[in-house]
C-alpha cells in the first residue's frame, strides 16, 4: 500500500485526526538538505566563564568575599576577541600548567576557528533557576509543558518521515509525538539491523536465495503489512489505532540502516578523535557526534541532541567548569570536522546552550549557584564576522534591549528564550511550518540573525 492509499484508508475509517503529523506527508522520505544539532551543556553553564566574561569587576562585595566580590576569578584579556566576541581567559585554578594550556588552547582554537561563523547571544533572561524548567524553556521557548524541543520541531517541520528523524542523546527532547525520537549509540548493533533477516551470506533466517528469486521473508513482510491494515480498520480504541498507524508508517519506510553503517565506518576511519585537538578528551561528545553525522550523511536523520554534563558547579567552580567548557568546545570542533568530512557542514546549524546561568560571584565553597541569565552560541553556515547580539549588564543581569541592534535600550524589551527560539525558527526556515500555529511562541521578534 502506498502512503496515499494509506491516508485514504485513514480517512475512510475516520482516523485522520489521530494520525501522527509525520504521516500526513504525501510522499516518501526525501534525504534532508539541512540539519540541526543542539548541544546541551547540562546542569547550567556559566556564560561569564566562556562567552560573556566580566572579569575582576568587584561588583558583588556584599554577596561574596571571593575575588573581592568579582564575577570572575580572572580578568579580561584584550587578546581574546574576534569581531564583537570576547571570550574568557583561563584562571589559574591549578598548578598543572599543561592542564591550563590545554584548556586555553581549546578556547582560543575554537573562537579563532569558528568565530567568523559564530553568533553569540548574550543577556537571555530564562526566568528560572530550576533545572527542569530551564532545560524546557531554553530548548522549546516555553516554560509550559507540551512544546517540542527545537530539534524535534525542526525535524518535524523538515523531514518528519525519516526513520530516525531526531536522534537524542539526552537533554530536553520532548517530541509531542511529532517525529520518531531515536537513541543511536551502538554502531556495532546497528550494522546487524540493516537487514533484520540477514544471516550467513545474505541467505536470511527466513529462507531466501542470493538472487532473491525465492524470498520467503518478503512474503512474511507483505502479510504483516496487510494485517496492520486490517487491524487499523477493525480497532475500536483510538489509542491503538494511532499506534497501529504509526507502526504502519514506520514499517513502510526504508530505514536504510545499512547506509548508516557504511557512513560510520568511513567517518571513523578518516576523522580520528585523537587527532582533533587532544587525545582522550571529550570522548562522549565525539562518540555522539560520529553517529549523528553518519546518520545525517546516510539520510536517516535531520536533527540531533548532543549532551554533555558536569556544569552544575556549586562547588569549586573554576576547577570543574573550565575543563568541561574546554571539552564542550573540543566536542563541537570534532562535530564540525566530521560534518566537514561528510560534506554537510555548510548545511548544518549548531546551537549550544544550557539550562540557565550561574551567579556572578562565588559562594563560600568557591562554587557558583543558579542564576537565570544565560547565553547561547550558534554556528551557522555563512560569515557573521564574530557577532554578538544582546548584552547583559556589567553585573550580569538581564536588561531591556533594542530589538534591531541587541544593544541596551530603555525602550526595548528583555530577551527571553522564546525570542531566541523564534529567531532560530526563522533562521532555520521553519517558522512558516504548519506546526508554528500549534506551537506558537507569540513574541515580538528580535533581529538576532539578520
Amino acid at each position, binding site marked *: 500500500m502506498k502512503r496515499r492509499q494509506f491516508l485514504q484508508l485513514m480517512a475512510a475509517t475516520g482516523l485522520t485526526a489521530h494520525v501522527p503529523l509525520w504521516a500526513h506527508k504525501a510522499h516518501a522520505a526525501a534525504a534532508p538538505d539541512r540539519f540541526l544539532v543542539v548541544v546541551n551543556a547540562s546542569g547550567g553553564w556559566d556564560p561569564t566563564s566562556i562567552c560573556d566574561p566580566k572579569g575582576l569587576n568587584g561588583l558583588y562585595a556584599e554577596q561574596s568575599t571571593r575575588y573581592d566580590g568579582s564575577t570572575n576569578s580572572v580578568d579580561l584579556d584584550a587578546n581574546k576577541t574576534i569581531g564583537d566576541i570576547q571570550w574568557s581567559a583561563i584562571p589559574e585554578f591549578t598548578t598543572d600548567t599543561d592542564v591550563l594550556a590545554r584548556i586555553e588552547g581549546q578556547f582560543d582554537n575554537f573562537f579563532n576557528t569558528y568565530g567568523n561563523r559564530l553568533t553569540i547571544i548574550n543577556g537571555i533572561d530564562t526566568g528560572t533557576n530550576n533545572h527542569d524548567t530551564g532545560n524546557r524553556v531554553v530548548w522549546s521557548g516555553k516554560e509550559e509543558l507540551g512544546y517540542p524541543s527545537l530539534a524535534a520541531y525542526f525535524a518535524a517541520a523538515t523531514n518528519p518521515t525519516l526513520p530516525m528523524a531526531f536522534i537524542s542523546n539526552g537533554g530536553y527532547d520532548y517530541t509531542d509525538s511529532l517525529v520518531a525520537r531515536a537513541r543511536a549509540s551502538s554502531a556495532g548493533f546497528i550494522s546487524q539491523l540493516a537487514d*533484520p*533477516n540477514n544471516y550467513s551470506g545474505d541467505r536470511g533466517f527466513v529462507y531466501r536465495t542470493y538472487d532473491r528469486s525465492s524470498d520467503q521473508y518478503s512474503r512474511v513482510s507483505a502479510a504483516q503489512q496487510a494485517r496492520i491494515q486490517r487491524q487499523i480498520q477493525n480497532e475500536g480504541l483510538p489509542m491503538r489505532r494511532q499506534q497501529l498507524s504509526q507502526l504502519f508508517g514506520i514499517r513502510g519506510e526504508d530505514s536504510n540502516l545499512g547506509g548508516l553503517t557504511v557512513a560510520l565506518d568511513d567517518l571513523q576511519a578518516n576523522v580520528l578523535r585523537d587527532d582533533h585537538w587532544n587525545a582522550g578528551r571529550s570522548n562522549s561528545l565525539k562518540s555522539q557526534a560520529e553517529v549523528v553525522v553518519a546518520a545525517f550523511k546516510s539520510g536517516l536523520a535531520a536533527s540531533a541532541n548532543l549532551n554533555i554534563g558536569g556544569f552544575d558547579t556549586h562547588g569549586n567552580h573554576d576547577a570543574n567548569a573550565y575543563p568541561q567548557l574546554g571539552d564542550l568546545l573540543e566536542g563541537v570542533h570534532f562535530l564540525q570536522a566530521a560534518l566537514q568530512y561528510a560534506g554537510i557542514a555548510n548545511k548544518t546549524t549548531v546551537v549550544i546552550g544550557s539550562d540557565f546561568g550561574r551567579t556572578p560571584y562565588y559562594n563560600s565553597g568557591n562554587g557558583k549557584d543558579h542564576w537565570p541569565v544565560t547565553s547561547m552560541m550558534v554556528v551557522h553556515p555563512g560569515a557573521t564576522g564574530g557577532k554578538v547580539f544582546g548584552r547583559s549588564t556589567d553585573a550580569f543581569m538581564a536588561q531591556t534591549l533594542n530589538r534591531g541592534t541587541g544593544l541596551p535600550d530603555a525602550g526595548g524589551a528583555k530577551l527571553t528564550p522564546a525570542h531566541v527560539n523564534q529567531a532560530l525558527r526563522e533562521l532555520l526556515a521553519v517558522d512558516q511550518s504548519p506546526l508554528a500555529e500549534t506551537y506558537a511562541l507569540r513574541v515580538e521578534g528580535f533581529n538576532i540573525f539578520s
Partner: protein
Amino acid sequence: MKPILSVLTLLGFMLVLTGCEQGYSGNVGGVSAGEDGNLTFLNVEGQRQYDAQCASCHGTDGNGTPNGSSLVACATCTSLSVLADEISRTMPIGNTTACTGSCATDTAEYILYAFNNYALAATATSLDGVTNEDMVVTLRSAALKLAGRLPTDAEIASVENNGETGLSQVLNQLMNEEIFYDNLMEMFNLQLLTDKYLSSNQFEGGINLLDSDDFPNRKWYNDTYAADEESSIRACVRTITNDAVARAPLELVRYAAQTGQPHTLYMNADYMMVNWYSQQVYEAELVDSTATFRKLSEPVCDEDGIQLYYDPTDFKPARVTKDLEYELGGFPHAGVLSSPMFLNRYPTTFTNRNRHRSRIVFDYFLDTDILKIEGERPGDGIGSGTANPTLLDPACYACHQVMDPVASAFQHYTDRGQYVVTGSTSRNSWDSSDIEPAGLGGKTIPLSGTTGYFRNMVQWLGAEIANDPRFVKATMRTLYTGLIGQEPLLSPGDDASEADIAAYNSQRAILNTIGQAMVSDGWNIKTGVKGIVMSPYFRAEAIDAGKVVANEHIGATQFLSPEQMQRKLQATLGFGWDEFRTENNRIMYGGMDSDSITERIMEPSGLTIAIQMRMATEMACRSAALDFTLPVRERRLFPLVAATTTPYNTDGTASAGGEERIRENLVHLHWTLLGERLATDSDEINASYELYDALIQDGQAMLADPDSYDPRPSSWMEWECRARWYRQADGRTDGDLPEAMRIEQDETYAIRAWIGVLTYLMSDYRFVYE
C-alpha cells in the same frame, strides 16, 4: 465447578431471581448504586471486607462452611438495604461493630453480585461509553504484566466459570509470585531511579556512596577475600553486595507487599532492608535478632574453591545502631527518606539547603508540583533587594513556605547523605534564621523535650507523609504509570474543554476509589495494583466516542520496554533474546539506565522497529525446531501438530486432517503470542494459514528442484535455526541437546514454514505492544 455444585448454584440463582424479583427493582441505594439502582459490577472494597471478615465462616465462594451458612440465595439477600442492615447489626458474630456503615454496604454489594448474580455498579471497574475486553483476555494481559507468564488452563477456567470474582482470585495468586515483586520494584524505580547505582551501571556505584568512616566495612569482601586480587569470588560477592545496597529502598516496597504489611513502610519504616551481603556493609542489627538468612541448595558464588549459599533475594529489616564517625548509636531510619541511595540520588548543596530534596518529596510522595505554586522568580536573579527574600519577599515566600519546612527536616543529612546532627559546634552547620523551621503542611516538628524530634526530624516527616491523603494519590500515580504506561491526566487548566474536564474527573474518581480501597485494606499495595488492572483504563477494548469525547488516554496498550519484551519472550517461547543482555542495545530499544537515560521511549522509531524485526526473525528461527523437541504436553508453541504435519499427503493431494490441525495450532499461536481468541475459520486464521501454505508450497517446490536455486536448498535447516542446544532464560545457549533429541533437518519444510509464521506473529502489533 463440580456438576452437582453447579446445579445447586444455578437453582439458587433461579430461586433468587424468581422469589425476590421485587427486591431488585428501584433505587436500592448503597455507595456504588446508580440513580436507578441498576448496579453492574463488583465492589472491590466489599470483596476485601468479605475476604477479611466473612470468608472464614461463609467460604470464599459464599457457599458456606460448617461454621457459617451459604450466602447464595440467603434469606436476607433480597435487597442491598436489607442485607446491609443485617450485616451492620449482626456481623461478624462476636464483633458486631466491626462492619457497619459503608463497610456493611460494600460487603452487601459484593455478596449480592458475587454469589447471587446481582448486577452492581462499582465506579472503579467501568466507565460509561467504554467497553471492557473479555475477562480472559484481561487475565492474559495481567498474567504477562504482573507475573511474566501466560495464564494456566486452570486459571482460565476459573475466570470463565466465575467471572470477575474468578479474575480477582487469580490476580491474588499472580501477585504472590516472585516476578510480581520484581515488577513492582521496577515500577517504583521508574520514579525513584536508584537503580542508577546497580553494578551494571557503575562499579561499586552504591557502596562508594557510603562514607568510609561511617562504614569502614563497606567493602568487606576485599578483606574477606584478600588473597583473591582479581579473581571472580570477590567479583561475584562485590556485585551482589553493591546491588543489595543500591536496591535497599526498593526492597522496602517488596517487603511490605510480600509480608502483607502497609506500603506506608516506604515512608515510615524504622529500619532498612539488608541481605546477608549488605548486612556486613552496614554492620547492621537485624530487627528480629533471632532471624537467620536463607541459604540456597546451589551456591550463589562458586569460585576459587569457595562457595557461598546465602540467597541474595532474602532481605530482612535491620537497623544501623553502631557508632558512626560523628554520631553515637547509628542513624534513625525513616523508610526511603533516610536511605543513602535516595539522599545521593537527590543531593543537595551548601546553598541549595535540601530544597531539591524537598521538591522531590513533594513530587514523588505528596503528588504536589512545587513549581506550580503561584509566585514570581525575579528576572534579574537578585529579587527586590529584600535581605531575606525566601522568608520576607511575598513573591518568594508563597513557594518557600511550603518547600522549606521539608527542606529543613533533612538538615541532619549532608550533601552525600551522611548523618551528622546539626549544631553550633557540629561540622554540619545549619543557619535556621533564614529558612522556615522543619515541618510539613503548616505543622512544625516539635524539637525539644523528651518527646521532641530534633534528631529524628525525617522520621517525623515520614510518619506525616504516611498519614497524608496525598500519599495515596502519589502512590496511585506511581502504580498507574507503571501499569498503564502513561501518567494519569494532569489537572485541566481554566480553559480546558468540557470533554477534558470530564475525562479528568472520571479518571480521578476511579483512581480515588481504588486508592481508598487500598488504604482500607491496610495500605495493601496489591489492592491498588488489582484495582487498576480491573479498571477500564487497563481493560478498555472499544470506545463510544459520542459518550467519551476525550478518549486518547484510555487503554493500557504500550510499546514494550526491552525488559518487558524479554519477559514476554520468556513467557511465550521459554527463553529471551540474548541481544537484550547488553545495556546499549536495551537503550537503543527505548530502555533506560536510571542514570543519564531516565525515561523510556514509548513511541517506536525506524531504529527500534528494525531491532524488533531482527528479534522476531532470530527468535522465530531459534524457537520453532526447539519446541518440537519437547514432549507434546510441554510444548509452548506447537502442541497440536507434529514437526512433519503438513496440509498435503505424500502424493501432493490435500490433507483435510493436516489442514485442520495446522489451523487449530494457529488458533493456539494467536492466543499464546497475541492474546487473540479466534475461530479456526476466522479471517485472521485464514490469513495466517494462507501465509503458512504459501511458505510450505514455496519450500517444497525448492526442495523438489534444488539445483535451480543458489544456495542449494536441502532438508538441513539454517545452522541457527536447528534444535541443537538448550537455551538459558536470557537467550544464550546452555549446552548441547542429546543427539537423539536434536532436530536439524526439515524434510517436509513444515518447520521452516512455521518459522515464517512465527516471524509474522512476533512482529505483530499485538506482540510488540501489550
